[in-house]
């Protein structure tokens, strides 16, 4: 019980208020369909030429027996091509269960994780969603790192994803 608290405090101190931050919000929309399954979602960063830089999250069915849920990871076509096929799933800090309808936040800063080693430059945040017996959608949000000022980028999905918003703070 105590450890997570201490760890939480520790990381709070490790990330001073001056750290450059990235807040991402991803909406999984409510869909009017007869058979609904939660989508598989991959979120990653890419550099120029769509070069894969870092995975931020992969939400898939990781509770199925015999890792049967991994059978459908290739439906996240671009993520599978750029990253997934080279990974041994699950990956700590990236893998997670599929999410229900709602809006989900991801917080990152330059004190830890992939942003710690991210070189200055132009990037794109990519969100790809694929749904069983449903469709697939891929959205990109361009941004520059590190941010020079507060900045908000957003894009609206059309059928598998809702609003994706990226907030950057220097």
């Amino acid at each position, binding site marked *: 019980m105590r450890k997570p608290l201490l760890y939480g405090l520790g990381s709070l101190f490790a990330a001073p208020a001056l750290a450059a931050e990235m807040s991402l919000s991803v909406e999984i929309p409510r869909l009017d369909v007869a058979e609904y399954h939660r989508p598989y979602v991959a979120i990653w960063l890419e550099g120029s030429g769509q070069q894969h830089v870092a995975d931020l999250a992969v939400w898939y069915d990781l509770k199925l027996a*015999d890792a049967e849920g991994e059978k459908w990871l*290739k439906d996240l*076509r671009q993520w599978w091509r750029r990253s997934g*096929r080279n990974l041994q799933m699950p990956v700590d800090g990236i893998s997670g269960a599929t999410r229900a309808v709602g809006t989900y936040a991801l917080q990152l800063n330059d004190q830890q994780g992939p942003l710690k080693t991210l070189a200055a430059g132009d990037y794109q945040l990519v969100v790809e969603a694929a749904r069983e017996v449903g469709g*697939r959608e891929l959205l990109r949000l361009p941004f520059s790192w590190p941010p020079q000022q507060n900045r908000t980028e957003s894009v609206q999905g059309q059928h598998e994803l809702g609003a994706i918003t990226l907030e950057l703070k220097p």
Partner: protein
Amino acid sequence: MKMTYKWAALTLALCLPLSAQAHRAWMLPSATVLSGDEPWISVDAAVSNDLFYFEHFPLRIAGIGALDQAPAGGPPGMRPRPAAVLQVLAPDGSQLQPRNGAIGRYRSTFDVQLPLKGTYKLAIANQGLFARYSENGENKRWMGKADELAKAIPADAKDLVVTQNDSRMEVFVTSGAPSETVLKPTGKGLELKPVTHPNDLFAGEAATFIFLLDGKPAADVEVSVIPGGNRYRDQLGEIKTRSDANGHVSITWPSPGMYWLEAELSISENVAKPATERRASYSATLEVLPQ
């Protein structure tokens, strides 16, 4: 008369191993890019007009289904042509056995489980001689292996023309990350040497392949690429190109889907006797994925 001619042409087309004359022979995998543990693919194999619909004859493959019960691939009473020999190569270069083989009126079908991560190759390759000659004023045809020719053709045959035929049909499938081992050419007949991995094809992107004849870059190879699904299209949508002096071909895929690639080369120089002409063909079923 017309019918006889048609059957003769058809028989010839079907007997020339995997020949594209009039009909197209193909294998269609259920998937080419797979994730998860030891996934399966299921493969249809047929000879048809439209791609990829089984509507004419099954592709006869040794060990796949009860071949003696299956249609011979021609008019009633026709002697069945020899079954094709299928190779299933695993990423480590070992050979796998297809499973659950069956042959029906229009298609053969089999499964392959993919135990290793990497790229697999399914290949059907043939090499043989085709002879045309006349005997007692009657036109005859013969097909077989080089060492059978002397016995099969009568000594008094006239107007004998012997053609060497090489054909190869391939399908590539990758579980996990792509690998290169099975892509190594055999050095026989017409082959495709990928520059772009054949399981890394995406709509709107260009893929580069090198065509080789007996392991050496082959210039001027005629290449035709046809997207599947032409039953519901008015236009074939064929992409035609030729290999350059270094055997290179570049293809930009207009849309995602299954494509049938066919390459052909006819030469009359440096042909091994007794053949005076050589015809080499290559075909592959390639999957192009969406962006």
